[in-house]
């Protein structure tokens, strides 16, 4: 059996094992359910906004007031995906952690790693096989999620997505895979590196909570316009151009806040996905060339992190003298 065939055999085994694992299946169905729920909630939320607009319009007309200043809520089907992207950030990352943990834990728990390594297969090939199998699984899971997302948006939004919109979803799908591989690699790395598997799992969760929830939350909380209910500038009735002029004087603070947010890999993924899908108003309706020119750095960051953690995991797996020792 040549080396590639060996790697492929390990990958196939990883793929099949994960599909039989209850923990993985629980999280997969949970993720699919949450994404479906988030799109439906977003659709009802939009309907609510339309109803509020129509009520306000009716009242203004009845009282004989001018209605030109009232702007009608615009429907952008891809904006329904905000919650779905957030759940991919949160639950998708947990799913990837589960895969990384199980990939190593099952071998350590069953003492099969020692047996595998007595066979004529290099440590690097075993690692590569495991990585490939799980990467294929992440691609399959993301594929199911994004096909599901497209169908639900079509049905809930009562519209057929255009070719350009489908291409934007495809780009988001690609970067979702890269993002999820970061958490898979972190969890695999910790499971190889630490003697205690539960500690590896808990530390993976600590890293997850920091990257996914805490750092973005701090950045969001430090936003000056988030300090007062309704927003500071709204309370002063200031138009957007004036707000920008004022904030320009506090660019050092904004830069500090932005730098803090940039330490979170999740934030990079979110910024990129929100730009592709037009969830962030600044990028809604803008060309992909414009989006790439503005947000390419986010793509580079998550790709680099994914590569680095993957390579680091491989190095540890190959170089660590004793891979598994009973506590």
């Amino acid at each position, binding site marked *: 059996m040549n080396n590639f065939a060996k790697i492929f055999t390990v990958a196939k085994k990883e793929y099949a094992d994960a599909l039989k694992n209850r*923990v993985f299946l*629980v*999280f997969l169905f*949970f993720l699919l359910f*949450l994404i479906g*729920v*988030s799109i439906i*909630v977003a659709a*009802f*939320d939009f*309907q*609510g*906004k339309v*109803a*509020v607009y129509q009520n306000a319009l009716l009242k203004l007309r009845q009282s004989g007031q001018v209605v030109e200043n009232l702007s009608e809520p615009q429907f952008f089907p891809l904006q329904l995906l905000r*919650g779905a992207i*957030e*759940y991919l950030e*949160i*639950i998708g990352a*947990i799913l990837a952690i*589960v895969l990384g943990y199980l990939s190593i*834990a*099952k071998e*350590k*728990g*069953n003492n099969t790693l020692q047996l595998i390594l007595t066979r004529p297969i290099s440590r690097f090939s075993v690692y590569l096989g495991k990585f490939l199998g799980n990467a294929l699984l992440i691609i399959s899971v993301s594929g199911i999620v994004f096909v599901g997302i497209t169908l639900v948006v079509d049905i809930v939004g009562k519209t057929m997505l255009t070719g350009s919109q489908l291409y934007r979803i495809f780009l988001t799908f690609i970067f979702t895979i890269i993002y999820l591989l970061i958490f898979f690699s972190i969890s695999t790395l910790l499971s190889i590196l630490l003697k205690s*598997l*539960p*500690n590896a*799992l*808990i*530390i993976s*969760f*600590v890293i997850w*909570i920091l990257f996914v*929830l*805490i750092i973005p*939350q*701090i950045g*969001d*909380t*430090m*936003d*000056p316009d*988030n*300090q*007062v*209910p309704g927003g*500071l*500038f709204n*309370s*002063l009735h*200031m138009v957007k151009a*004036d707000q920008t*002029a*004022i*904030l320009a*004087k*506090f660019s050092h603070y904004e830069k500090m806040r932005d730098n803090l947010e940039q330490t979170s890999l999740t934030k990079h993924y979110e910024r990129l996905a929100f730009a592709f899908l037009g969830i962030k108003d600044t990028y809604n309706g803008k060309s992909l060339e414009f989006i790439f020119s503005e947000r390419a750095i986010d793509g580079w960051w998550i790709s680099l992190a994914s590569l680095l953690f993957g390579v680091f995991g491989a190095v540890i797996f190959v170089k660590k003298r004793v891979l598994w020792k009973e506590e």
Partner: protein
Amino acid sequence: MPIIFTIAIQEVKVLFRERVFFLLLAIFILMTLASSFIGLVATTTTTSIYNASVEFLHQAGTDNIPANPLNALPALTNFRNVIVYIFLIGSLLAIVVGHRSFIRERKSGALPLLLTRPILAEKLFFGKVLGISLALFAIISATFIVSVFSSLLLPFRHLVASDIERLFLFYALSFFYLLFFALVGLLFAIKTKSESLALFVPVCIWVGISFVLPELVSGQTPTALLNPVTMDQVAPDGTFFALMRTYLGPLSLGWHYTSFSSQLLNNSLQITNAGIGSALRDNSGKLFILLIAIGVCLSLCFYSIRNYTIQEENIYE
């Protein structure tokens, strides 16, 4: 010393010896401390932005400028980020406390010995619950002290006695919220065969309670639920959200915790500066639901420990 206390004290001692627990605890306390600092930096900058805006508006010829809205916010709003950190890190820490409490016994092999003596099953349960409660009490007390000291050390508006009372009630509520998650962690550590599943299922429940149910009830996305300014925003109108509020509202413990905490810390969008009595009265239903949830978890844990059968375990699966 009664055996229940021996088990409880042993529980706390072992827990505080664990490095991972200490790591989580350190992050939790650091974040509590950081939340005060973050609040200070953000409010100072916002005040400067307000002053610059006033100058700008004056130059543009506007006279009728509203007063700085930050000055109208109560002193306790400086601690509003703590709600988020208890909601996020605290509950995850509590799951780990509950989970480790039983998994430790399973892995050490002490459980078969303990459960060969029938009377010990009940005592083991009460000892474990007491130990978990003591550990959580120590954690909550430490964060309460950190909050009070940070208010004295940082140039905040000083807290008056009623503010301290509100802060105390908030931490008391947080204790019960964390106890619920610790019991969920304990329950699945008893019920589930594999160690990983025993941790993953409570994490799933945590995500459901913290994000899914509040989203269905309030229409807010997960990240919006982590913004202390808007976390208790009312749901949009419509039949869907009305139905969700009616049927899922009572189960939405995370939503109850954040909205009740917001009122206690005077951070609520709905009621600002409402008296403590009024806040407690308005939220007695939410507190009742939380206590019921704790009661249900306690009963399930008790039943599970009594009926626990020793089996050959592959805890790593």
